[in-house]
């Protein structure tokens, strides 16, 4: 890979690509391939479909870059395009409702339901889970919350709010619900494991 291109900003690479540099396009792909693929894979849970959608996002940019105006938001544009592709994927499969479903169950915060003093127990509990258990818990989240947990790996909350077209406060509250839900899932996993070991 070209080290000079690696130092360029996204917008500079976009302009270079628009002026005919294929290497600039490839640098943009290398820059976001992992995060974008993981986001799509997390949403669709299907390797073949994730690969196709991932390619579609970049091919769409490749073909229509002349219409894209660089304004310092290439990453947001990329994730927005990916999200739209994912929505189309679900629409084609009649699964659209699952993405924008509100998880009523997730609205009950765990620490609101815990008796006084048990929060510290929870603190002890958190930290013993393996990375694999955390990944599994994240995948068990309702899709809207799962999306939030993954998006915050790559985007700021402000960027997520813009991407999802929701108020910042709503996004923060949704993410908080996702964390509480994960705590419950992990606690249930560990409870089940304890029962098995007994």
């Amino acid at each position: 890979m070209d080290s000079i291109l690696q130092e360029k900003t996204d917008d500079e690479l976009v302009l270079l690509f628009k002026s005919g540099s294929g290497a600039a396009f490839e640098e943009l792909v290398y820059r976001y391939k992992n995060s974008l693929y993981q986001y799509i894979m997390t949403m669709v849970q299907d390797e073949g479909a994730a690969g196709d959608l991932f390619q579609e996002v970049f091919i769409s940019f490749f073909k229509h870059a002349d219409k894209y105006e660089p304004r310092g938001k290439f990453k947001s544009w990329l994730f927005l395009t990916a999200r739209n592709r994912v929505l189309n994927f679900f629409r084609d499969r009649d699964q659209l409702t699952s993405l924008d479903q509100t998880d009523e169950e997730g609205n009950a915060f765990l620490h609101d339901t815990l008796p006084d003093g048990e929060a510290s127990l929870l603190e002890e509990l958190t930290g013993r889970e393996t990375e694999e258990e955390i990944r599994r818990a994240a995948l068990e989240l309702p899709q809207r919350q799962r999306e939030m947990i993954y998006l915050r790996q790559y985007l700021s909350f402000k960027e997520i709010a813009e991407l999802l077209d929701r108020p910042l406060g709503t996004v923060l509250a949704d993410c908080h619900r996702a964390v509480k839900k994960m705590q419950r899932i992990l606690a249930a996993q560990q409870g089940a494991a304890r029962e098995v070991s007994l």
Partner: protein
Amino acid sequence: MKYCEDLMLYASGELDGPRKEAFRQHLQVCASCRAELKLLQRTDEALAAAAAPGSVVEELFAKTTRRKSFFAGWKPALAGTALLGLGLLMFLGGLQPDKTAFDASEVIAYMSENLDDEYLSFSNDLALFEQEF
């Protein structure tokens, strides 16, 4: 709800100034927020982006930047044909008499004939001149 929001912003490094300091102090007394923060940090580690499959990326490049045009595959064949044609032309050209050499021999023959005539004419004139003077 304020602490919930601040917790999320703090975890992603988006909380600044006095609000950040106030939340730090809150963390010292709130086990629930500490537990959530810890889980968020461990989630970040666990969900660190796995590499996209190399085959997917290579396929993407094959469809875009490294795409071969229709004529790209024919380039060697076209170049070979062009060379063959050129060779053939040169070969056929070699069978023709040398036009330049042919023209020169004609000129020399014409000149020698005409020079002879002129030379004879000049000699006759000279002989007549000598006879008279």
